[in-house]
C-alpha cells in the first residue's frame, strides 16, 4: 500500500515489477491516496506526504500481532517476516501452549512454558541457537 493511485500501481507492475517477478505482483497493490489508512496505522509521514515502510502481521481474528516500521532508505528482510508468520502460526495451532525461542525456525526446538521450565531454559536452549 502506498499513496500512489491504483493506475500508477498498474504502470509500475506492468513496466518494471513484472520484469523482476514472473507474471507480475501476485497480491493486491493497494492505493492509499492522502495517507488516511497509513495515518490510522501510524506510518504516514505528513511532512513528506508518503508512507514509511510499515509491515503489519494480522492474525485470522483481525488482531495485529506484530509490526516493523523503517524509514524509506532501508529495505525489509522478507525472510524474517515469513519466519515470524510461521512462528505465530505454530503458537496459534498450539493454542498458546508453546512458544518459539530467539532464533527459532521451522524444525527447531520449541518451548513449553510452565512451572517446570522456570529457571531451566539454560538447560534446554543455548545462546548460539539464536544465531543459527
Amino acid at each position, binding site marked *: *500500500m*502506498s*499513496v*500512489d*493511485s*491504483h*493506475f*500508477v*500501481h*498498474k*504502470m*509500475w*507492475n506492468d513496466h*518494471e515489477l513484472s520484469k523482476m517477478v514472473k*507474471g*507480475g*505482483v*501476485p*497480491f*493486491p*497493490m*493497494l*492505493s*492509499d491516496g492522502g495517507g*488516511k*489508512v*497509513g495515518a*490510522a*496505522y*501510524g*506510518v504516514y509521514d505528513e511532512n*513528506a506526504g*508518503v*508512507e*514509511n*515502510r*510499515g*509491515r*503489519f*502481521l*494480522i*492474525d*485470522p*481474528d*483481525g*488482531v*495485529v*500481532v*506484530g*509490526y516493523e*516500521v523503517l524509514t*524509506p*532508505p*532501508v*529495505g*525489509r528482510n522478507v525472510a524474517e*517476516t515469513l519466519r515470524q*508468520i510461521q512462528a*505465530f*502460526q505454530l503458537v496459534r495451532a498450539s493454542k498458546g501452549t508453546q512458544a518459539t525461542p530467539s532464533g527459532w525456525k521451522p524444525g527447531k526446538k520449541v518451548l513449553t512454558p510452565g512451572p517446570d521450565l522456570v529457571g531451566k531454559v539454560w538447560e534446554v536452549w543455548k545462546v548460539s541457537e539464536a544465531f543459527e
Partner: protein
Amino acid sequence: MLKLGSKAPDFTAPAYQQGKFINVKLSDYLGKWVVLCFYPGDFTFV
C-alpha cells in the same frame, strides 16, 4: 502507533491485481493471516 493485540483498523482501498482493478476490504480477509505492507512510493529504489 497501533497497540499490539488490538484489532487492525478496517479499510476499503482501490487496488490493482493481476490485470484487474478491484476494491480490497481488510475485514474480508478474516480467517486468514495477512501481511499489510506500506512503502513510500511506486518506482522508488528499495
